């Protein structure tokens, strides 16, 4: 909310907040050595494997890295449409 008001009044977000946000992303990438390009490629490959067995909608799949203490977790959210239709 303060961010919204801040933008309305033309004030910049606090720099400490920006520092934290930027560090969050940088640290995850430093720790895993995974770039967003590799992550995208992995996502495509996962979609391909899963699509061989069940019906999914590729556009709804999300795969992201999350931080849990000093551990990194790869979280995949893949909505399932139904069983694979036999051709």
């Amino acid at each position: 909310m303060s961010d919204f008001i801040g933008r309305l009044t033309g004030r910049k977000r606090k720099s400490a907040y920006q520092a934290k946000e930027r560090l969050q992303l940088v640290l995850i990438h430093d720790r895993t050595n995974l770039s967003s390009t590799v992550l995208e490629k992995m996502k495509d490959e996962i979609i391909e494997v899963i699509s061989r067995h069940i019906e999914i909608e590729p556009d709804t799949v999300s795969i992201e890295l999350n931080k849990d203490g000093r551990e990194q977790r790869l979280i995949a959210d893949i909505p399932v449409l139904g069983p694979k239709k036999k051709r």
Partner: protein
Amino acid sequence: MAAKVITITSGKGGVGKTTITANLGTALASMGQKVVCIDADIGLRNLDVVMGLENRIVYDLVDVVEGRCRLRQAMIRDKRTEGLFLIPAAQTRDKTAVSPSDMVRVCDELRPEHDWVIIDSPAGIERGFRNAIAPADSVFVVTNPEVSAVRDADRIIGIVEAEQKGPAQLIINRIDMQMVQRGDMIGTEDIVDLLAIDLIGIIPEDENVIISTNRGTPITLDGKSRAGEAMQNISRRMLGEEVPFMDLTIQAGFLKKLFTGGGSKNE
């Protein structure tokens, strides 16, 4: 006695490793502990000047490792603080003059007769840093509330873990509460949240640190400075005492609130 070996490291240079090493050593010794500080920054020695012992160096760490003197001979006794010793780094050699196993050997020789060995690590993640953490029982990672220092600290924490020397403990140095309260400096809670390790000390920005290093007198010897007090608190925590973190919040005065109050209306 069986000394505990603590390595002070950071990744990034200039965050305060040497000052903290000198002051933790001084504080622990003034509490009756027997302490040896080792400067592991070979080629760029500085712990000697910060401790004010630069004029008394005869032998250094490399002389010990290469057998030109006995360990005892390279230990400079601090005359102001009973029980405090310094083993200086060599200035005219480089990091490869010492190996990780040399460091383990030196520390093992020191362990029986002392309570603490505190190693001042060089910046970086190369040989000098590897030397410094090899004998460590615990590692203290120093950072500043700044993106580059926090990022480097995270990298170091990961390496310390991978080397089975973890979990490291965190010292946040040079925090400026006025800037934190203004929203222009990452706060201690956010840093701890990002790095996800235990905190052992928060040291406020304090110009007395520069004054004391100008003089070569560790700031913990001067009872009145905030930074000195913060470092004394760390040493008490090292001795197992439960010491709460200092309250660093700054209460704005009435007049200041009146005149700057307009700026915070939009928060």
